């Protein structure tokens, strides 16, 4: 049923957006340099969230499954990257720049390959049998897998935080009137952008990408056209795992992480995917950058700001508001699910 939105709901939504704009403008006027600095931080959050959100949206697009385990795969991948980078390759803050960059790239490639395999394996073991089961069953399984992956991370890395935040120098690239930009921030974008270009190329231009899009549209019809649906789904999971691994490494280079980092970050990334319109790749990125900016603004700005204590509530508030008011997301199409 295409429900017509009641007038007051639209008005309420509009009022919220207007308030948000006033708040942003107020903050900008209050302190422009602070605003821009926080904006840069938000872009970095957005990049990491985007890589994870893409994983959610790809899987949802193909299986209509919220892959709860995705956030935990992300966290585990970050921790494994730490093992590769710090323990095995022995990269420290004193390593030469070229060695550091080479080490990070090697880690990135190895972690992406490894977690592509892990994620495809999870699908094979846990989700494949449930493909025709009620969606509730698959969803509960995903929650269960999430806890299993989290506990694998707990068993290997215990409850300690790991970080490699010092590897990329925090020296300024430029400083202009209170606004500064650091190498470690640029580095995140330098990794994210090529990964996204590769992904776009894969989905848009390759045969396998075409098969993915077809399967997402209609699994039965795709199978009838001779597309190997099982292989396509496996590849989608592998793709999502690789994206999660790249996000894991980037997160490790910017923040401390431990076994349960993935739960909250996964939910935030999922919110981003829903905000953009789940199933829509561009939407996931748009949502991720929006959420990343909101989080950074909330934690970094000073003019009438709730502060980091309330970040989680704000993000979930947004999630609930979107699902209630505009379930199709910013860029999505109306689906029966939300009608």
């Amino acid at each position, binding site marked *: *049923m295409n429900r017509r939105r009641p007038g007051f709901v639209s008005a309420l939504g509009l009022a919220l957006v207007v308030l948000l704009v006033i708040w942003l403008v107020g903050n900008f006027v209050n302190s422009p340099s602070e605003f821009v600095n926080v904006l840069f931080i938000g872009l970095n959050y957005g990049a990491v969230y985007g890589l994870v959100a893409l994983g959610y949206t790809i899987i949802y697009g193909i299986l*209509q*499954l*919220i892959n709860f385990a995705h956030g935990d795969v992300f966290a585990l991948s970050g921790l494994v990257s730490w093992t590769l980078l710090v323990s095995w390759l022995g990269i420290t803050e004193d390593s030469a720049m070229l060695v550091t960059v080479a080490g990070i790239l090697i880690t990135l490639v190895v972690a992406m390959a490894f977690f592509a395999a892990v994620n495809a394996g999870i699908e094979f073991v*846990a989700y494949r*049998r*449930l493909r*025709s*089961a*009620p*969606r*509730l*069953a*698959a*969803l*509960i*399984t995903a*929650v*269960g*897998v*999430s*806890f*299993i992956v*989290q*506990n*694998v991370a*707990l*068993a290997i890395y215990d409850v300690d935080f790991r970080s490699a935040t010092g590897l990329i120098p925090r020296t300024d690239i430029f400083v202009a009137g209170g606004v500064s930009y650091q190498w470690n921030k640029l580095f995140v974008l330098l990794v994210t952008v090529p990964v996204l270009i590769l992904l776009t190329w894969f989905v848009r231009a390759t045969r396998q990408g075409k098969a993915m899009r077809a399967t997402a549209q209609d*699994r*039965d019809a795709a199978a009838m056209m001779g597309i190997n649906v099982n292989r396509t789904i496996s590849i989608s999971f592998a793709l999502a795992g690789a994206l999660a691994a790249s996000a894991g490494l980037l997160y490790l280079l910017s923040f401390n992480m431990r076994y349960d980092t993935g*739960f909250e970050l996964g*939910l935030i990334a*999922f919110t981003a995917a*829903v905000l953009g319109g789940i199933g829509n790749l561009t939407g996931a990125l748009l949502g991720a950058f929006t959420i990343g900016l909101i989080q950074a603004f909330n934690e970094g700005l000073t003019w009438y700001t709730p502060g980091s*204590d*309330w970040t*989680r*509530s704000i993000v*979930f*508030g947004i*999630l*609930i508001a979107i*699902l*209630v008011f505009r*379930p199709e997301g910013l860029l999505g199409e109306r689906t*029966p*699910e*939300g*009608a």
Partner: protein
Amino acid sequence: MSSIPADQPPARRAHPAGDDGAGGGSGGIGRRRVFNPLNVLLVLGLTAAAFLYPYYNEALQAIPLIGDFVPGVGAMVVMLVFTMMAVGLNIVVGYAGLLDLGYVAFYAAGAYMAAWFASQQFEQWRFHFGAVGISPELPGIHLSIWIVLILAGIFTTVVGILIGLPTLRLRGDYLAIVTLGFGEIIPQFVRNGDNIFGFDLTHGTFGISPIDSPGFGALGGGLLPESYQTSFERQSWFFWTALVLLLITIFCSVQLRDSRLGRAWIAIREDETAAAAMGIPLMRTKTWSYAIGAFFGGVAGAFYASFKSGAFPADFYFNISIFLLCMVILGGMGSVWGVIVGGMVLGYLNVEGLSTIGTKLNEAFFDPVFGKQIEVAKYQFGIYGAISVRMMLFRPVGLIPERRRRRELEEGVHDESLYDASSH
């Protein structure tokens, strides 16, 4: 998506009176309930055995070898409270088929109701009504716990309706996410609620403690304790109260299932579109299931807070919701008796089973063989996750399935339409 093959029996049968020969009335759905005397005897016997537990608990614990695994009376109270919540959650998940990943929110709301109305939290006021075991000069609001339990139930019901009204329109996994969102927001609100425009509502991360204890005051007439806290048999009295609360919950749950409302829930679970076509008001029916499920969560939360004599924000995290869900899944969604078994088993593992088993395993196996110890209890949620996955993959109906539910799953009634009707 795929249609039901032609050779399968029709998905939704009509239910002539004789169709479901519900032995013992546990699988029945019609008005006609057949009481099997054997089952009645079994239930009565189990109840009697349960009530006498504090008397033979120590004798059981004295048995060599298995005695170490027998839970104490205090542990039993926790198990009963969690089972009560699981039975409440079963109304939402099992009967109405709505996946609720934020049940912990109701538990928290109930606990904080007890904390507000039976402690010294609001020192600026002094109001006593039926409170026992404390000095009447004590500042703060102190109502009798029995009143607080009912208030907590009503409060969480209202919260449930407020959460339910905008969200229950969503289906399946979206609903799960929204409930999860509420389950995350409420604890954070509690944690940050020590300074809401200068008003200390929740006392922040410290939580609120102590909370008054239940009791009968002068009404007990010497037979019933004046206050549990000062009673010589504190744990036993909490145990008996928890048991009575659980029995009330079970009774309501069974009665509801067989009522008009309960049949409407099950109809929605099986096929939302068909249920709507039969004239069942979807939103109202779903909201009731959510509200009633919330009621029991609130009562259980308030009672538990009184037992622990405190409400702490660290207790209300997402994992609790999953833990409760796992009880429902293990026992069998929709099956009251299954959920009780699932709740008691997982509750036992959670309270002391895993650490006992871990200690024994370390003594007998890990230490001598590998020379190191493994903290089994640390991985409890991994274990619950593994249980959920295992159940979903190999026995989705649960340990003690409800008759009707099994038929649904075996005959493929669910096929997409169960949780994913496309319109209403």
